[in-house]
């Protein structure tokens, strides 16, 4: 069990004293009684043989609530990610959404001969360039338009909004047709081999654009660059920046004129943006800048719950309930809209509402919108 021992060491799982705090906050444990983060760590310590085949490691949403709560700072999510690559080696594969279409797409993008045309979202009124100081990383946001066509939400709108914002602030962001998926889903479903190939391609593309800063709208992409790329490739040679941070900078340098919007909105902290990257205030400040009234949900900032699915591999009965609870919470705040930054959160919340539900409609029919699109509305 050398690989697992090494993993336990890296993530400090040995320090776990089974206090049970993590299990109390874990959204999955709340619904699925058999699941408990602690249980998995204890089994790992005992060096249990069949651990890699354990079904539960695929139920963990890696939302990081337990990390946040653990008094002994056990990096439980990293432990699960390591365990998953072990599980894959032992042939215990997850049942992924859409039959694993996203994972397949990710692997295909590692092929060197691929000539993509992923910039179809760049409409004529947007100014983008081959090279530039700021590189705008889009990842798979545009691809979800087609994969989840039946949910009628255009995630590519997020990219258009972001470029509009940058253009109005005089920035012509660099984008590239050879950019590939950041590899987040492959990394979190135990496929490190292809994850590294994607990383190499992306780093090469960004180096070619000569950018100093790379802007992200998608928190999963940013977290993957911030932690996983640096973890493997060390210094990336550029700074990683979230769109909300950039917007606030531009407003400070008053390069960005915008008018105010009215209405009451609430904000859902995506796990990767909040607990993983620790960015809580920038989004809120950005929303406040728009003049709209921001009301906080009961569970917000590092306490906000998860959208129920991560890396398109953990969608289960519990995911649905989490989404409904979260939407009820948002509705309760009286906000007209729930904003979030992550295209995946948007997709999963939409999944639980696009179908009519007997007796539930009015409690969950709060519209969901991406914060970047919301902010871009201030520019008209």
């Amino acid at each position: 069990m050398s690989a697992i021992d090494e993993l336990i060491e890296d993530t400090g799982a040995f320090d776990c004293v089974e206090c049970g705090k993590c299990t109390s906050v874990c959204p999955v444990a709340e619904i699925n009684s058999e699941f408990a983060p602690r249980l998995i760590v204890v089994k790992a310590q005992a060096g249990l043989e069949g651990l890699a085949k354990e079904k539960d490691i695929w139920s963990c949403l890696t939302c990081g609530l337990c990390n946040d709560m653990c008094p002994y700072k056990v990096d439980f999510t990293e432990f699960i990610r390591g365990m998953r690559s072990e599980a894959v080696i032992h042939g215990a594969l997850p049942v992924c959404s859409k039959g694993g279409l996203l994972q397949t797409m990710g692997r295909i993008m590692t092929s060197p001969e691929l000539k993509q045309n992923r910039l179809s979202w760049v409409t004529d009124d947007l100014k983008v360039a081959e090279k530039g100081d700021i590189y705008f990383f889009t990842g798979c946001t545009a691809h979800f338009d087609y994969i989840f066509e039946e949910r009628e939400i255009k995630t590519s709108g997020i990219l258009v909004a972001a470029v509009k914002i940058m253009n109005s602030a005089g920035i012509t962001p660099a984008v590239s047709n050879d950019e590939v998926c950041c590899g987040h889903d492959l990394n979190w479903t135990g496929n490190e081999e292809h994850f590294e190939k994607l990383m190499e391609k992306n780093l090469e593309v960004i180096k070619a654009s000569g950018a100093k800063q790379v802007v992200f709208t998608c928190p999963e992409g940013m977290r993957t660059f911030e932690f996983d790329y640096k973890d493997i490739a060390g210094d990336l040679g550029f700074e990683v920046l979230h769109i909300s941070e950039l917007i606030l900078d531009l407003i400070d340098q008053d390069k960005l004129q915008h008018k105010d919007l009215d209405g009451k909105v609430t904000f859902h902290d995506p796990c990767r943006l909040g607990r993983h990257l620790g960015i809580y205030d920038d989004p809120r400040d950005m929303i406040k800048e728009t003049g709209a009234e921001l009301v906080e949900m009961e569970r917000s900032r590092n306490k906000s719950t998860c959208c129920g699915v991560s890396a398109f591999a953990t969608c289960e009965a519990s995911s649905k309930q989490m989404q409904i609870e979260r939407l009820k919470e948002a509705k309760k705040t009286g906000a007209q809209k729930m904003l979030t930054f992550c295209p995946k959160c948007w997709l999963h919340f939409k999944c639980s509402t696009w179908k009519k539900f007997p007796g539930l409609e009015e409690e969950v029919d709060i519209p969901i919108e991406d914060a970047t699109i919301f902010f871009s509305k201030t520019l008209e």
Partner: protein
Amino acid sequence: MEKIGAVMIAGGGIAGMQSALDLADSGFKVYLVDSSPTIGGAMSQLDKTFPTNDCAMCIMAPKLVETGRHHNIELLTNSSIKDVKGEAGNFTIKVTKTARRVREDKCTGCGICTLFCPIEVPDSYNKGMKLRKAIYVRYPQAVPPTHTIDMEHCIGCGICESQCKANAIEYAQSDEERELNVGAIIVSPGFDEFNLELMRREYGFGLFPNVISSPQLERMLSATGPYRGLVLRPSDGKMPKKVAFIQCVGSRDRSIGNPYCSSVCCMFAIKEAVIAQEHNQGLQAHIFFMDMRAYGKEFDDYYIRAEQEHGILFTRNNRIADVSQDPKTQNLILNYIKDGEMKSEEFDLVVLSVGMVFPKDAKNLAEKFGINLNEFNFCDTDIFNPTSTNIPGIFVAGAFEAPKDIPGTVAQASGAAAHASALVSGQRDTLVVEKTFPEEIDIGGQDPRIGVFVCHCGINIGGVVDVPEVVEYVKTLPNVVYAEHNLYTCSQDTQEKIKQIAQEQNLNRVIVASCTPRTHGPLFQNTIRGAGLNPYLFEMANIRDQCSWVHMHEPDKATDKAKALVRMAVARARLLEPLPKSEIEISPSAIIIGGGVTGMNAALMIAEEGYDAYLIEKTDKLGGIVNRLHYGLRGEDIRKYLTELKSKIDSNDKIKVYLNTTLENFSGFVGNYEAELNVNGNKETLKTGVVIVATGGKEYKPEEYMYGEHDRILTQLEFGELLNEGKVKGKEFVMIQCVGSREEHRPYCSRICCTHAIKNALKIRELHPDSKVYILFKDMRTYGFREIYYEDATREGVLFIRFDNETKPKVSKDGDGIKIEVLDHFIQEDVALYPDYLILSPATLPNEGNYDLAQMLKVPLSKDKFFLEAHMKLRPVEFATEGVFLAGLAHSPKFFNECISEANAAVSRACTVLSKRIMEAYSAISVVDEFKCIGCGTCEEICEYHAPSLVEKGSGKLVSEINKALCKGCGACAVACCNGAITTLHFKNDQILSMVESAAEELKRESSKPAEEAQTGASTSGAD
């Protein structure tokens, strides 16, 4: 005397087998008596069948094996009927089973004895072109496989007994008397070939070695024949370049006493020409005929393709007078007329299309059963009861009733079975034993142990694919523990071998690489069930229809592809799982759509079988198109028959008639159909077990020949009505055939119009003795005994003028009269006629309603928009969809008595469903994983059969649940379900992906590293 729930069938050909299977599956004990040592009859000698070019043995093998293995059918082969006593419902029959001196229970048909027997005898099965031994079996896949000692030639040397491993030889075996007690009898002894020796003078049969009969050519074409599929000249073994086919030898010839037409030889010759040209490259076939009688469903397409695509030469109007032989080369010289001048041509081979005559034991059977024979010693029947003889309780089917093709035979066999089972429907299930399978072995936790059986299928696969090489390759695949190849995997002895090997090697997966799973899948699944394996632990690789037959000119590529297909099947087999059996209730009633003669007969028969019948008619009266008919060809009073039929329907309380009713909606599955009817305005729903489609056809309103522009230009039906009312005056009558049929856009032949024209022409001559009648035709297709009336017409002075699509008659107005100009082929001049009446023979069209009905019943339509049956040859009266049957004009244009046969046949097939209370349901359905299902409802919305539905589970959580009986296993919900909570059993994602991966295996190159992959600048720190 009380009735007996058993039936005896005399004659084990395709007709006998079909009746036997229908009756045995409907709960009756069947005694199948055949005079020859094995069942299979004439069809077993065929290589291919028209019009689908199916290999005869391949489509018959499943029926052969099933009849041989059916627990309710007892085979009495090598037997003859000695004496019959009793009456309808209770017959006693004495049958002598002549000793074959081999014990049936011991002989496995291995054939060692034939190796050592010193006596060689000309093999009659192969028409004397091959030798067999004194101890023999008629053909490799024979059922029962027991060998027989031919007492005529055996010299009693004792070698076979010394060599027989199963010590099955019993020289002292004596004849056995059997007394059978049955409720009904079906007589189906088939036919015999006309004795061509009688034509020795004209055609030199038996004199010139290269003059052979069409059955002899059929044996040459067959893989088990003398030359293994090659056509050779018997004189010198050379491959003939030019082959002549002479039609109507022994038929349509009053001088030798056979004035009737044998119905099948035209199509038989075309098929043989096509297949001969396929087997011998460069062979050129040339058919000499009078009329090309391609009257059946898709026969004309076959005829046109033979002429245009395969380049077969057709010479019309040439009944070859004689054949002479060039002594040196033993080639044959034929003289014929082409384009008006005499031609003499030399051919390497001449094939005589021999006609059918009554079977040789017809007289004996007739005498024993007391049934009447017609003037040609065929069984005498009338058009209203095509399968009944003059003796109640004794029915007839197949060629013995009248020369007919295989679909007609099969339909009549099921029809006769319907009558027989109706007679003793009270005694259903009294003498039958339930079919049992050994208890299923639990293979849980076992590693896959796969057995692969690769088939030669005679030369169909083995001729192109190197089967032994495929077997060697398969042996190298992981998890394959046993692999072998067989000549015919579908034959009964190989089935037993598979069972035995499965047990010996304790296989838990079985793969057969042969033909299409569509036809042979269930057969092999039943075999492995016999070995205690769940039927879903089975996979087929189609290396015949989708490999050897379609890559004939690239044998090595075909072999590689066969290897790939078997590898893919093995990949999928590793992941196959056993599926539990599930049952469905059957409601014992039937809906019959269409109130014509076909529908009414079907309804009556359903009632007689003891089930409720709901007869739905679109219009306000029953009778359909037959309402416009008055008398039959032999003067039968159709009107009277129709009124009697309608009164029988009204007086039968088991039949409920719905007039002015259409089918609005239709759902459910076999045994549990639900139909929403619109009974003149108000809704009514019916629950029923089966559906019989008998919507009939309609008369084509001609757009050509100025129809509708002159009151004395009528269709045959209109004219028939006038004729019957005596309102017809005039001297000259002209009829034009094939109006709307056999055209570019509608290539099929409407089958009945030639006979209809002849009937009306004879009526005209009868009512107006001094009138002149002309019939302008393309081909006079009065097949079977109808040919005699065509002869009467010519004797009555009716003038026949041939035309074809290029030289159609031109119709024009001549004052208030009619003028017709037509080219007479013989005198090569235009002939002008000025008739008082012009009578058109219009095509029979499918109903427009067919399209919508097909949508509702989810059944396909054929190219010509009639309904497409499950199998053109062997399942003509049912659809692929279980529980939905078909009869009458809705299938294709046909005659009055043929519709009645098909109506009864459909009922007999329906009884195989209705007679069971519980039926095994389809087990490869979709199932939901309760824990993964997020209750989003997508599946409920997408399923056409409303099988999945959201259900409250415990803690208020909504979870989808799929109704086992409704689910069809189409798998649409499994794809729609985003998180993979629904899996379709037997077609799971991993099972299909394993085949994709296996198909891509040949591309096993390491993942394509970009040649110019630059080492990324960033050195990999951190982790190491």
